């Protein structure tokens, strides 16, 4: 159990490629933190630096109160779960799980006990004598989880552990990992490109792009108050709709984008006044668009209707503008139908088109 702190950590590959830049986080003991971002954003590099598999170019990494920059992975008291499981193919499940303990010369009775306990938790007791190739993907990842649990490390590191699994197993193991954290209360750092995993697992999520932290916060906070357009678009599925238009002042502010124009009445008027006559990006999440039953609203056409069962995704269009709306499954609409839509303005966001920062 330990805090993990990264101070101004930078990783440069080949003397010029910044994989990670001035990375600062403080993860408190027992916290579950998710690093999320598109592929190539440096999130795995951060994790690998914490693990000691990658050298730190600049800055310091602390585990507990010790700087671990120059400490070998095995001395860091961490455990890591890899995307491709990284099980030892020639060892059976028991040997895979107990390998780290054997190397650390743990007493064989103790090994047996810990392996059995872990197997119990993960439901893999019956697989002990099998080789990895006789296991399914889900079972392999459970074994890999078992291998990290028995070590009782200070910190767990997960490098996209669910990416190679099918959708159903992913959900199953996701809850498994959540339960594991509740039970063990150990610091966990989890890397994923899947924003759903980030939202559901993390107590704190850190969104990265091009090696730089964009935002850190609780999932709800990041979802409701994204700092910039990137975060707003990355978190949430289907992602937020963005429309670029001009702010005009005609007896109150107006967002003008030809046929998709509307008065701005979200309480954001004060902040938007300085943008009068300039471009601005309007952002609205799909669930904050609804179909108006009355005459009021912006006219659009339903181009495509995606029935998800529990909800409907409507692809709406007018002229060159398209939006995706998420509406209840009992909404009476058809493809090709003309509808009027209403925005939930208090939930709308506005972004500066130059800096991309939320206004």
């Amino acid at each position, binding site marked *: 159990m330990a805090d993990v702190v990264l101070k101004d950590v930078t990783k440069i590959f080949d003397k010029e490629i910044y994989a990670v830049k001035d990375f600062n986080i403080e993860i408190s003991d027992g916290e579950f933190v998710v690093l999320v971002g598109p592929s190539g954003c440096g999130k795995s590099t951060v994790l690998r630096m914490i693990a000691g598999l990658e050298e730190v170019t600049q800055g310091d990494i602390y585990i507990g109160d010790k700087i671990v920059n120059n400490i070998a992975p095995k001395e860091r008291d961490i455990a*890591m779960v*890899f995307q491709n499981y990284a*099980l030892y193919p020639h060892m059976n499940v028991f040997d895979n799980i107990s390998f780290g303990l054997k190397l650390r010369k743990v007493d064989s009775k103790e090994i047996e006990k810990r392996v059995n306990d872990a197997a119990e938790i993960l439901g893999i007791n019956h697989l002990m004598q099998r080789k990895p190739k006789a296991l399914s993907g889900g079972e392999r990842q459970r074994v890999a989880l078992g291998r990290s649990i028995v070590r009782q490390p200070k910190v767990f590191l997960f490098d996209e552990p669910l990416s190679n699994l099918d959708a159903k197993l992913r959900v199953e193991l996701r809850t498994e990992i959540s339960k594991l954290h509740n039970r063990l209360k150990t610091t966990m750092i989890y890397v994923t490109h899947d924003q759903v995993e980030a939202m559901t697992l993390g107590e704190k999520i850190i969104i990265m792009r091009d090696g730089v932290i964009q935002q850190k916060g609780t999932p709800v906070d990041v979802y409701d108050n994204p700092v910039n357009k990137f975060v707003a678009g990355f978190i949430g599925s289907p992602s937020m709709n963005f429309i670029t238009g001009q702010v005009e002042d005609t007896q109150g502010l107006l967002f003008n984008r030809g046929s998709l124009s509307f008065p701005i009445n979200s309480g954001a008027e004060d902040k938007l006044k300085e943008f009068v006559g300039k471009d601005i990006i309007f952002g609205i999440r799909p669930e904050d668009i609804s179909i108006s039953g009355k005459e009021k609203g912006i006219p659009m056409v339903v181009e495509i209707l995606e029935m998800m069962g529990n909800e409907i995704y409507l692809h709406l269009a007018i002229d060159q503008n398209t939006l995706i709306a998420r509406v209840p499954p009992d909404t009476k609409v058809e493809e090709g139908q003309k509808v009027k839509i209403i925005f939930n303005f208090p939930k709308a966001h506005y972004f500066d088109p130059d800096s991309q920062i939320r206004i």
Partner: protein
Amino acid sequence: MNRKLSLMGYLMSAPYIIYFIIFSAFPIFFSFFLIFHRWNIVGPMKWVGLANFNMMFSDPLFWTSIYNTIIFLLIHIPLQVVVALVLAEVLNQKIKARAFFRAAFFMPVVVSGVVVTILWKQLYSTDTGLLNNLLMAIGFGKVEWLTSTAMAMPSIALMATWKNVGLYMILFLAGLQSVPAYMYEAADIDGATTLQKFRYITIPAINPVIIMVLILSTIGGFSLFIEPYVMTGGGPLNSTLSTVLYIYRQGFSFYKMGYAATLGFMLAAIIFVVVLIQRKLIEQDD
């Protein structure tokens, strides 16, 4: 259409089939036929039944040649496997001039065996050889590399290792490169030292290559011929008389073709049994 196609197929494979019939199938059948005959190439064949076998079992020189070959294998194979594996491991690291060293160690493999042997004969020469000059320069006495019965076979084994190690190094190198990096990373985190990673990750992962190298070098070792033929002629005192050299002499010096064929079959049987035992011992069940 179909007939045309199959004709085309036979035509395409004809060169190999013809080669195989002339140089493999026919000699095998013909020598099997010879086992039961006495024949000096020019005269008529004479049926002798199992007389060649009787001769073989009471021929001390044949068993000496088997013994010599086994001595050769016992030195050559472990040396070869260990040196090849160490070289492969070193040349799998990120070291300078890696490509140069890989090519340099492979070079002897493609050089003619006769050329290599003549070269080493000079290196090994007791009075004028480079090796002994070097030993004397640093204060040691002369070694009778090829002229003492104790040293001759080990000297040949050493040379054979130098000649072939590049090939096995390349095989090991291919094996090492197929071990995924994440396995070593997982072992790093599990707490394995460099040696433990080699023992628990590398060796099991390249086990199939180790088996292949062992079998190939066993078969290759049993057919030891050029080295003693060119270097020592089987001497001193038959201490480097290899089985194949002995078979060659029976056939082409004494023209006992039937007897030579019998010894050849015996050698093939021995190789078969040895390789079978090797596989049983080393192969992992999985």
